[in-house]
């Protein structure tokens, strides 16, 4: 499975670069950092049916860092939710694939996100809904590290543990960079694990959040916490722009950056190991 997942990650990365390169600009850094997580969730962990995206009792993913929309779309397309050709419509007028996730536009998207902090509270509401319905679903949420500066994240964290929402597994994409500078320089969120722990969550730290094997193991571990009465936070130490060296090297400049078709081709060659 892991070999297969590595291939899937390569496909997702290539599709992210293709659609952002086709458009010319996009949130490339924070898309590339969550690829392994999305692959593990959609191709292994989640109980879903691409042919029936609104299936009752399905597992759900709320990407609270909504600007990683293109990464989620690339994953959904690879998983068979819609034709890969649709990825080329990213952010074009009238598209079903807007820069930030929209549940009313995109097949397979479970929540509208983009105003940071809100998606995580929505995920808590979804997890509460699943508990009330007793349908056994697992609710996954992805939070950005910069997003963790939003007070609403901590309001939601407090509520989720107070209400014992152990069907909620959240991930922090801890790539250490945000728009203006490093997270540490702007408004440091460290020590992150201690914070989540203090809020009553199980905390799993993943040394390399861009290693599918480590991410798979963490997700399995987190699933094992279900029934414990506490939600789980998985902190993924990731690299913003991971897998494309010239994007990685941009550092803080890679949050939302220009990518030409030629850049995309160069990136794809690197991802495919042809460089």
């Amino acid at each position, binding site marked *: 499975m892991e070999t297969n997942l590595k291939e899937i990650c390569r496909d997702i990365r290539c599709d992210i670069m293709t659609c952002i390169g086709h458009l010319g600009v996009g949130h490339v850094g924070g898309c590339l950092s969550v690829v392994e997580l999305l692959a593990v969730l959609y191709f292994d962990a989640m109980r879903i049916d691409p042919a029936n995206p609104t299936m009752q009792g399905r597992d759900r993913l709320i990407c609270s860092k909504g600007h990683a929309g293109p990464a989620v779309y690339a994953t959904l397309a690879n998983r068979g939710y819609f034709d890969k050709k649709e990825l080329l419509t990213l952010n074009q007028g009238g598209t079903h694939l807007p820069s930030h996730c929209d549940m009313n536009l995109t097949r397979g998207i479970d929540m*509208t996100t*983009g*105003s940071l902090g*809100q998606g995580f*509270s929505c995920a808590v*509401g979804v997890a509460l809904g699943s508990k009330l*319905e007793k349908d056994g679903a697992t609710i996954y949420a992805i939070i950005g590290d910069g997003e963790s500066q939003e007070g609403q994240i901590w*309001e939601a964290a407090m509520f989720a543990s107070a209400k014992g929402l152990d069907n909620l597994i959240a991930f922090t994409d801890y790539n250490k960079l945000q728009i203006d500078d490093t997270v540490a320089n702007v408004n440091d969120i460290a020590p992150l694990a201690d914070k989540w722990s203090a809020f009553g969550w199980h905390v799993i730290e993943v040394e390399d959040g861009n290693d599918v094997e480590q991410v798979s193991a963490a997700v399995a571990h987190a699933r094992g916490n279900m029934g414990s009465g506490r939600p789980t936070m998985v902190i993924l130490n990731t690299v913003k722009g991971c897998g494309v060296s010239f994007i990685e090297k941009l550092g803080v400049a890679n949050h939302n950056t220009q990518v030409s078709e030629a850049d995309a081709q160069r990136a794809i060659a690197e991802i495919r190991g042809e460089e």
Partner: protein
Amino acid sequence: MEMRAVYANCLAELMEKDRHVCVLDADLAKASGTRGLYEKFPEQMFDCGIAEQNMASIAAGLASYGFKPWIESFTPFATRRICDQIAISIAYAKQNVKIVGTDPGISAELNGGTHMSMEDIGVLRSIPGIVIFEPVDAVQLRAAMPVLNDYPGCVYIRLFRKELPDVFGADYKFDLFKADTLRQGSDLSIFVSGLPTVDVLAAAEQLAGEGISCDVINVHTIKPIDKESVLASARRTGAVLTVENHNVIGGLHSAVLEALAQEKIPVCAVGVPDRFGEVGKLPYLRQTMGLTVEDIIAAAKRAVALK
């Protein structure tokens, strides 16, 4: 009966019938009159604590799961404080969440300026897809509650929570999108929402004695406004007065002006004159904000004189 008791009783009936109806509080369930429902409906009542942003987005998440959540707080915290959560988590995402703001405008009384929202309708009226409803008495509220619950979208309910005199009788028929004519006249159309409605009726009675006959129309739904009724009355009388417990900017006055923008009809306003609130009891605040029966009569005469 207090409006909040009517509201809570209606919610209890709705929750009894449908386990997907649920209520979220931000530590003001006692103020909203719903604290007593927690024991009977433990799987439908949720206190989020003092975290209104979280409450609004959790409600959106529950709605996405097929629930019909109602969220409650004082009007400033149910609207301006969580404006982006309402705009994005609820309205933009098209989630079926009912938002209840209690103690609108001057009715916040002794809580004073910080808790006195004069702008809540204006804040929400500029966000697409939100119905804005302000009940005028217990009869209307009771008739409205099941309709609001069944309406498949976001509604803001601007709820005065204490007792109000009945404006409507037992034969009242409620239509969420149709304004109610309380009194018919030919010289002036008075459009009013919420708390000042009884004052407008008193003013209309006095004006009748002075030879000015008024249409009095209760605009319980400020958005979408019943443009047809507004236009029909205004064209017939040729002069308009709006009366509201809200800033004259952004609320009923603005909504009526927008409806009448193409008409050559004078429109005067009684409302809060673009200022913040302050502490005081209702009689003092009515005086200070220019919302007394005398203020309504004087503005009515100004509107008629402009014809």
